[in-house]
């Protein structure tokens, strides 16, 4: 009798554990959705509405057509984003990258930018990722203050090399992506 009891307790406990985990995961998800995802969707929707309705879209299209639909143009964008003084300013919350990404998405949808440039563009607009967060990120990794002192400029200068390089890699990796042949 006590054996059966033990089994029942064990089964009940593990099922309860799994269900509890799933429920907790759902709660966490809804929490993030409401706090992080939906507010950004609202903000992005406003920008897209503004771009599509007003003449801003055409103005941006003229401005970025040359930049975003050639390898050289994308390289210029990536170098600008990777400049060590600019990159920490462009970084916070990836807000700039998300707005630029959305604007590029609108132009890709309108046909201003060829679809195969979507992949290199994803890297061109983002060499500054995390550049605002280096001291905090290193502190999370329990780095010594001396390491932070060296690490911040090391990462910033590294981006100047690897930013444009990532665009070139992505450019070659985008062959055959959304192209007719």
């Amino acid at each position, binding site marked *: 009798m006590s054996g059966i009891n033990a089994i029942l307790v064990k089964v009940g406990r593990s099922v309860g554990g*799994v269900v509890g*985990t*799933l429920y*907790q*995961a*759902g709660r*966490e*998800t809804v929490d*993030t*959705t409401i706090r*992080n*995802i939906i507010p*950004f*969707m609202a903000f*992005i*929707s406003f920008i*897209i*509405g503004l771009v599509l309705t*007003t003449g801003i879209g055409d103005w941006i299209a003229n401005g970025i057509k040359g930049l975003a639909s050639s390898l050289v143009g994308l390289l210029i964008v990536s170098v600008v984003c990777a400049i060590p003084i600019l990159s920490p300013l462009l970084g916070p919350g*990836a807000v700039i990258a*998300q*707005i630029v*990404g*959305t604007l590029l*998405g609108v132009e890709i949808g309108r*046909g201003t930018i060829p*679809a195969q440039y*979507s*992949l290199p*563009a*994803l*890297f061109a607009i*983002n060499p500054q*990722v*995390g550049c605002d967060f*280096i001291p*905090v*990120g290193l502190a*999370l*990794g*329990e*780095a010594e203050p*001396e*390491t932070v002192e*060296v*690490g*911040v400029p*090391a*990462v910033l200068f*590294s*981006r100047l*090399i*690897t930013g444009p*390089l*990532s665009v070139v*890699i*992505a450019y070659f*990796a985008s062959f055959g*992506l*959304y192209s007719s042949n």
Partner: protein
Amino acid sequence: MKLMIGLETTVGDPTGAWGALADGAEYFISIFQEGGAVLLSLMGGILPTLIVLLTAVNALVRLIGPEKIENLGVKASQPGLQWYPVRYMVLPLLAVFFLTNPMAYTMGRFLPEKYKPAFYDSAVSYVHPITGIFPHANPGELFVYLGIAAGIQTLGYGLGDLALRYLLVGLVVIFIRGIVTELITARMMARKGAAA
């Protein structure tokens, strides 16, 4: 709108200064109507999928237990060429997947000081490429990928190709970034040591 067919019920548009104001008001509200339509398509389109996906992956991560990857962090701290791909590809990938942004950077604590900046660089550069397929890793910054992906969707193409290539090219990029930053860090540390 004509309510009574057969009768002249058409209302003329307001003219003059008042008409211009009315046009302005309509134009003003049309901006937000367009934005509202976009918001509805986002909420009706990707949001439900996203919520279900996030729940499933969050549950999976909890069931597996993020502490499992700590052993890998210890292993990745060793010198030697064969540990480079582990340190700057596998470890950032698993850290970002299991610990998500920003807790992924805590994995750096298992590495020696000289590798920490490079690991941070590598891990932080992966928090966007991963969102194409695993959005749970960085739900607050989805629109780097989603913004561009929306354009591809407008054109009627599938997103799988782009998401997969973004994920894989991202891995190559963080590997190179880790190596380059490690080299620069080593050089700067040596110079600082010589100056002191």
